[in-house]
């Protein structure tokens, strides 16, 4: 057995000095060349476990029990020097955020060199050759050029490849990947996952793959452990587990994943009312403002074109899904319509009224009628204001309500969002992510809007929470008849909420039409690629054991 974890327990000290257990008696085993997925929602202890596999804990945490045998040696019992020697050479890690794991002021090549030099004692020249070879192995087109770049000069995918190259520098027996693709676009994620699989075979490395995304785990891993509250609640072969989960929690997790596959639940199409559309966008173009120092006569760089010639309309009571990866211009569209930024060229008509100004210059009633919900629920709520004050503010601004009236209305709104009115006196940080996003929704609905713009509202949430927030949104929409512009990179989510869909890439429309049509018969290759990247792959990749079984048959 390459890696054998026995009864591993990790605890940490909380603010009030109590000792809490983050990883509770976890046992798992990993053989040569095997791939193990560790799945679970945020806070389940999976990252702590990953670190403990390298005999490392965050300051304040402590491994309190169990063993980690690497090739039969308990690495937890080793002296610190030997622990350091093992990390990076025999067991390496790819952390979640590639930017924060690269030093920003060093060329990426030098950073890989450093690892190679330290563990293998190569000369600078040899190290450089090896680093370039590693970068080439990660499939980057010009490894020599990449070698000389700084981290900020690389794209997200490139950075992640550099980090993977660095991790593989010493050909470790085990590679631990902690959410390596969470920060990436779906299509990029797909490519990185392919790379990981390919490298695994090429370098003959065992993988521990940690992710909240069951889809990703299904693509990469032979075996899976599902964690909850620090315990492994279910473990076994990936395919079998997904096909017939034993534990109720695993089943709930699987059910909560929005499905793009035809077999998933399809949103019932709302009837087109036939009225004039609530929002009509014609030939919208938007160029980022020129950047400069803001001093008169200082040189300016012309801005890039974020949106090119975009036309669409949203009918009353319907939801338009706007799909695209980062940089596709979808958030710019939201900003222009909501009035965060002044409009570019083209025409935007809201209920017949042209939207040709930024929000502060719009009439108050217009501001009220268009509401926006943001991606990160925590940052969209002022952490220093109570939930009550947050919800009362729009009521007082838009409806000039008195304090008491506003407070009652706020309480009513909270209850409508399936939350207790006591939460009015809480602060955003004391709420869970789902509750925070519901408060954000409640704030938007407090203004009794006609159009609500949802910008990636679920992407910061765990899947199970995500489902409940989406359900809430749908029911609110059904109740109030509000129209919705729903922006997301997640096709599954879009499929669940949107009547119509527009696929954006580089500021241009690639595909448009009713959701069911676009998803079942994509007309543009990019849409096909997106669909492929998001498809639930529970049955796509036959597990190694199955292949063996087939061979036997």
């Amino acid at each position, binding site marked *: 057995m390459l890696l054998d974890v026995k009864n591993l327990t990790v605890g940490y000290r909380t*603010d*009030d*000095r109590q000792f809490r257990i983050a990883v509770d008696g976890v046992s798992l085993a990993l053989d040569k060349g095997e791939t193990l997925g560790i799945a679970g929602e*945020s*806070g389940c202890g999976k990252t702590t476990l990953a670190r403990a596999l390298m005999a490392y804990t965050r300051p304040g945490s402590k491994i309190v029990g169990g063993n980690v045998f690497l090739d039969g040696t308990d690495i937890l019992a080793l002296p610190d020097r030997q622990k350091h020697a093992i990390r990076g050479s025999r067991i390496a890690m790819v952390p979640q955020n590639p930017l924060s794991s690269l030093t920003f002021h060093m060329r990426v090549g030098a950073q890989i060199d450093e690892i190679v030099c330290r563990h293998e004692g190569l000369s600078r020249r040899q190290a450089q050759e090896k680093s370039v070879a590693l970068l080439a192995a990660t499939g980057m087109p010009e490894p020599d050029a990449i070698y000389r770049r700084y981290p900020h000069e690389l794209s997200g995918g490139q950075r992640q490849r550099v980090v993977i190259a660095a991790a593989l520098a010493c050909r470790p027996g085990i590679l631990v990947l902690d959410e390596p693709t969470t920060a990436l676009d779906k299509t990029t994620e797909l490519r990185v996952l392919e790379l990981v699989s390919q490298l695994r075979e090429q370098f003959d490395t065992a993988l521990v793959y940690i992710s909240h995304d069951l889809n990703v785990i299904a693509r990469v891993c032979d075996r899976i452990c599902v964690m909850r509250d620090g315990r492994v609640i279910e473990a076994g072969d990936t395919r079998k587990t997904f096909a017939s989960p034993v534990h109720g929690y695993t089943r709930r997790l699987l059910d909560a994943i929005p499905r793009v596959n035809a077999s998933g639940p399809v949103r019932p199409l709302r009837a087109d009312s036939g009225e004039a559309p609530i929002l009509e966008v014609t030939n919208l173009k938007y160029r980022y403002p020129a950047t400069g*120092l*803001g*001093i008169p006569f200082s040189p300016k760089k012309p801005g890039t074109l974020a949106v090119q010639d975009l036309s669409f309309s949203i009918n009353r009571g319907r939801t338009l899904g706007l799909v695209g990866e980062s940089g596709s211009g979808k958030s710019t569209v939201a900003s222009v319509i*909501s*009035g*965060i930024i002044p409009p570019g060229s083209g025409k935007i008509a809201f209920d017949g009224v042209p939207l040709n100004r930024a*929000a*502060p210059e*719009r009439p*108050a009633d217009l*501001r009220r009628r*268009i*509401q*926006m919900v*943001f*991606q*990160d629920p925590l*940052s*969209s*709520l*002022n*952490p*220093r*204001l109570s939930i009550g004050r*947050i919800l009362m*503010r*729009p009521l007082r*601004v*838009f409806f000039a309500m008195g304090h008491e009236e506003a407070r009652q209305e706020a309480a009513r709104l909270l209850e409508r969002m399936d939350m207790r009115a006591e939460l009015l006196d809480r*602060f955003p*940080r004391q709420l869970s992510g789902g509750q925070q996003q519901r408060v*954000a929704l409640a*704030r938007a609905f407090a203004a009794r809007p006609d159009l609500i713009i949802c910008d990636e509202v679920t992407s910061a949430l765990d899947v199970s929470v995500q489902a409940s927030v989406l359900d809430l949104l749908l029911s609110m929409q059904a109740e109030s008849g509000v129209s919705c512009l729903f922006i997301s990179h997640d096709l599954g989510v879009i499929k669940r909420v949107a009547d119509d869909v527009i696929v954006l890439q580089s500021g241009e429309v690639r595909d448009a039409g009713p959701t069911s049509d676009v998803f079942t018969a994509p007309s543009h290759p990019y849409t096909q690629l997106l669909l492929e990247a998001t498809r639930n792959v529970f049955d796509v990749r036959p597990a190694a054991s199955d292949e063996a079984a087939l061979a036997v048959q």
Partner: protein
Amino acid sequence: MLKKSGKRILRSPVTMIGIAVLTAHMAIAALAPWLTPYGSSELAGMPFEPPSREFWLGTDILGRDYLTRLLMGGRITISVALCGVFIAIVAGAFFGLAAAWHGGMIDEVIMRLVDTKVAIPSILLVGVLIPGFGQSVPVLILVIALVYVSGVIRTVRALALTIAPQGFVTAAVLRGESNLSIMCREFLPNVLDLLCVEFAIRMSSAILLVSSLSFLGLGISPPTPDWGLMVSEGVGYIHTDPWLVIYPSIALSTLVVALNLTTEGVANALGLDAARGMTKG
């Protein structure tokens, strides 16, 4: 949350020592006139009298009771530093938020002024301003405010810049809130912690600055009892009467150290709370 922070403070012995010493200093400063039977500049005895039942710490170069002067010596310094730093904090918060929120020319002008100020050593600035405007307590307060306002502007602006792109600020803009309302309602509550910590940090530094100025003859004028001034008066007698220097030095250093310990402890208790809350999971 406050309760938690309170507990954390109680558990840190160093912070508790800081708070105890600080409280003692404040109590003494507040009650000083009633603690000894002498006036602070009263010529109660002959110069250089040794400690006795009458004068517990002896008398100074003019025959004034040294204990009285020592107890009174912190009052002016603390008040001047307090007023100066308070003005610096209020003005710094205003200009820092304005710079961060308005951006553009306003930001440029404010920050270039701040840079200019930072490029001039404080002691030089003070050395030019005080003789220029005359040596008086209001001038001293304004000079202290001027010395510290630039730092406050910088830190407030830096934090405000991280707040500005957050959703709740955008939400307020979309509601059509006025700039003043956004600054007061959305920004201010979020920089309040920082302002408190800034206040405490600048406070200890300001106390030292006022004392140094008094020592150099640019701060508090005699015969007002003041530690910096007392050190400067006593420094000539350090070979024969070192206590004239040692007592006020001890008083000054315990105050500053206590202030720093308290600040650090309280900031840790409050700041770590916020930081942990964000990085949890």
